[in-house]
């Protein structure tokens, strides 16, 4: 047998379970292969063999609290997001490359003006309690989240909906108040898990149509679920027999658990320890550049930031490369002062990257006529390393002759007292499923979270037009204009998009990074599988 044939044979043996991973690596190195290469060859072979069923897939995650609930309307953190994507399902999903993926809705169609949307509901899908999914459940779910009293995290998305009707046992028609070409994307939101009768009877029962059935829910400690045998798509989802999330909020404890193989997946690996984690032999670091970003926010209507030259000066005084290298340790990409990056569909290509330019900053600063220190408020809760980032920014501004006074605020109350209240502060944004959603949430005049007080009628008009435009070329041109308006006139300084960094042990196969969010956008537990 030639060397490569023998390796082939050996990898097949591993997949069939006749040879352990350790033995494979031993024999492969005996054949003269270096260890990393043998490892990657094996994972390639395992991947090619397709998903294996079985085992208990365990994740250790930051972002769970004893105040958590199973009611999807209340979800805010990563643990709830990942667990929710395992037991619940939305009408649609978005694939890593930004395409719409049908889930509980088999087919989506719209009227030519993009105001009426028809969703064909998949037949024969069962809830965990044995009841069949019907259009009425979908309608009830969407109604519950549209209610102003619901306190649902998806309320903002539902605002533009005029009516939701079941027009058959398996058909739902949604009318929007204004044309909205993004509606099917928006309904992929993880709060919009379809529940029996919309969860109106028992919002936190934890019953959905997802690939896993909730067996244990101990908030802030441990969540467990077992494969739902009658799930409609067991080829793609639900490979492990059981899944378990242990809430490990301490970073060192999470890494130790991964190192001692008590868990298979850990989320939120801090950039400063990534290199150390990479050195653990059986661990792979998974990073993906996502849509989340760290921001410095100026209020465009408050002095001195109501002066466009001052805003430009502060934008040119930002050393983005340095931020990415020192705050993110390279696990991120530079921003260009508009909240969209190439992870979004219809990303406007070719907008020049804004560079650090102290001379230009000084030119605009002098033109603004401003004098004296500018107060920048920050806190550790704004984003990891926010206080350091503010200090770095102070240095780079000093080189342009701009005097920044960094004021550190308590983390307690930062979101109520500082963010969206003070004229210049640090903050973060996680991404949104579409460009429109990002702009509608934080940049149009009527947005609740317009945290740069950016009020421009022509921008609002463009946003409304783009939302209803079904022609992609026209649409992406509108998005380019909007990006330029925010970039050149807005109050947003966006130095960096941060990567999501996770780590898996060598037993985890099927990891497919997703720019929409952590843990493969929440699908890691239902889509990955375990190898021997």
């Amino acid at each position, binding site marked *: 047998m030639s060397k490569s044939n023998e390796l082939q044979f050996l990898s097949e043996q591993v997949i069939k379970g006749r040879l352990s991973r350790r033995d494979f690596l031993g024999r492969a190195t005996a054949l003269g292969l270096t260890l990393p290469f043998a490892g990657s060859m094996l994972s390639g072979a395992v991947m090619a063999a397709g998903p294996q069923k079985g085992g208990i897939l365990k994740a250790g995650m930051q972002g769970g609290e*004893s105040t958590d609930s199973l009611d999807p309307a209340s979800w805010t953190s990563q643990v709830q997001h990942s667990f929710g994507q395992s037991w619940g399902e939305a009408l649609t999903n978005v694939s890593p490359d930004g395409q719409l993926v049908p889930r509980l809705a088999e087919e989506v169609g719209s009227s030519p003006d993009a105001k009426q949307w028809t969703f064909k509901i998949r037949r024969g899908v069962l809830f965990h309690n044995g009841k069949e999914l019907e259009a009425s459940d979908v309608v009830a779910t969407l109604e519950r989240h549209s209610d102003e009293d619901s306190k649902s995290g998806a309320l903002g998305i539902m605002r533009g909906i005029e009516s939701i009707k079941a027009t058959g046992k398996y058909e739902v028609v949604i009318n929007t108040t204004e044309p909205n070409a993004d509606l099917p994307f928006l309904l992929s939101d993880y709060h919009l898990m379809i529940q029996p009768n919309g969860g109106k009877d028992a919002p936190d029962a934890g019953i959905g149509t997802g690939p896993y059935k909730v067996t244990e829910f101990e908030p802030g400690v441990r969540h467990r679920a077992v494969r739902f045998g009658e799930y409609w798509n067991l080829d793609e989802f639900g490979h492990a027999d059981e899944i378990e999330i*242990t809430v490990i909020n301490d970073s060192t404890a999470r890494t130790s*658990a991964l190192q001692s193989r008590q868990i298979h997946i850990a989320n939120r690996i801090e950039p400063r320890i990534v290199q150390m984690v990479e050195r653990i032999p059986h661990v792979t670091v998974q990073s993906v550049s996502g849509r989340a970003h760290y921001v410095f926010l100026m209020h465009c209507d408050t002095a001195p930031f109501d002066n466009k030259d001052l805003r430009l000066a502060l934008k040119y005084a930002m050393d983005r490369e340095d931020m990415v290298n020192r705050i993110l340790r390279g696990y991120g990409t530079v921003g260009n002062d508009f909240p969209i990056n190439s992870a979004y569909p219809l990303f406007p290509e070719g907008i020049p990257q804004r560079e650090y330019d102290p001379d230009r900053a000084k030119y605009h600063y002098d033109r603004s006529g401003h004098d004296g220190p500018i107060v920048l408020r920050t806190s550790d809760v704004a984003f990891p390393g926010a206080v350091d980032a503010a200090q770095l920014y102070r240095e780079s501004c000093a080189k342009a002759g701009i005097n920044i006074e960094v004021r550190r605020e308590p983390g307690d109350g930062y979101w109520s007292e500082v963010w969206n209240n003070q004229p210049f502060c640090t903050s973060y944004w996680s991404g949104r499923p579409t460009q429109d959603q990002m702009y509608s949430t934080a940049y149009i005049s009527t947005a609740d979270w317009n945290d740069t007080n950016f009020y421009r009628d022509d921008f609002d008009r463009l946003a409304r037009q783009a939302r209803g435009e079904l022609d992609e070329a026209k649409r992406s041109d509108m998005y380019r204009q909007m990006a330029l308006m925010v970039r050149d006139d807005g109050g947003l300084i966006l130095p960096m998009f941060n990567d999501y960094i996770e780590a898996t042990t060598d037993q985890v196969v099927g990891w497919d990074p997703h720019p929409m969010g952590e843990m493969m956008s929440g699908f890691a537990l239902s889509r990955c599988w375990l190898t021997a």
Partner: protein
Amino acid sequence: MNLLVLKLIAQRIALGILLLFLVSILIFAGTQILPGDVAQSILGQGATDQALANLRREMGLDDPAVTRYFNWLGGILQGDMGTALSNNRDIASSLWGRAQNTLFLAFWTALVAVPLAIILGLVAVRYQNRWPDRAISGTTLTAISLPEFFVGYVLMYFFAVKLGWFPSVSTVYDGMPFADRMMAIALPAATLTLIILAHMMRMTRAAILNVMQSAYVETAELKGLGGLKIIWRHAFPNSVAPVVNVVMLNLAFLVVGVVVIEVIFVYPGLGQYLIDHVAKRDVPVVQAVGLIFAAVYIGLNMVADIVSILANPRLRHPK
């Protein structure tokens, strides 16, 4: 004589209950003056004015404080602690699960640490200023001088990551087999033992050394008793009061003060439960946990007082 003792004990208990009542007022008042409000904290970054107003109305945050205090106290006396504002779960049942975990860890730690500390203290006295004394004092003082998270990480690194003897994640859950549970708490219990050992050991040593100068100890020596026997039979019973006091303080610490250990070993105890709810301004939970912590402190100190009264006849006749 016995009646007198009973009366003294009854007084102590009554005093404890009164104290607990006063503490309940303090806790209630304290949570009222916390900055921010529950509605704001629950909704966090995503709060709109409309949602805030809805939530405040729903949670009855508009009632006057005195009404809310008596409603709350009445509920607790009937075993009803209400529901958590943040996730609508019944407080009493979630709290009881967490309290069981905390008590489980505290019990096994105490079972190891208290006898060990006292024995080490006795040995240190017996070999006072010789190498066993120096070794015991040196190691225990080193352990207490290091921050607890550091001791925890060191033990985790060697015994969980390098040697793999124990799990580094100590999550326990309902229905976990007893042996697994003991394995899970091995490292946090060891860390806590190292932290409370020195305190109790030093107090035992000092208290006994204090009475070792007494005439009756000299008498015991003169009648020819051996070193450890004098300490155990004559010196220790007379120095039990300060030792019990320190032991009780440390037991109270094991129940109310171990949140750092809970976090690094991922142990689902009361501390983490309290902190999560403080961060969300979940007032009913904070009040309930606060009251339990106060009850633990007051209760254990009461036990210490009673033991002292029983052990020391002089305390039975207060001037």
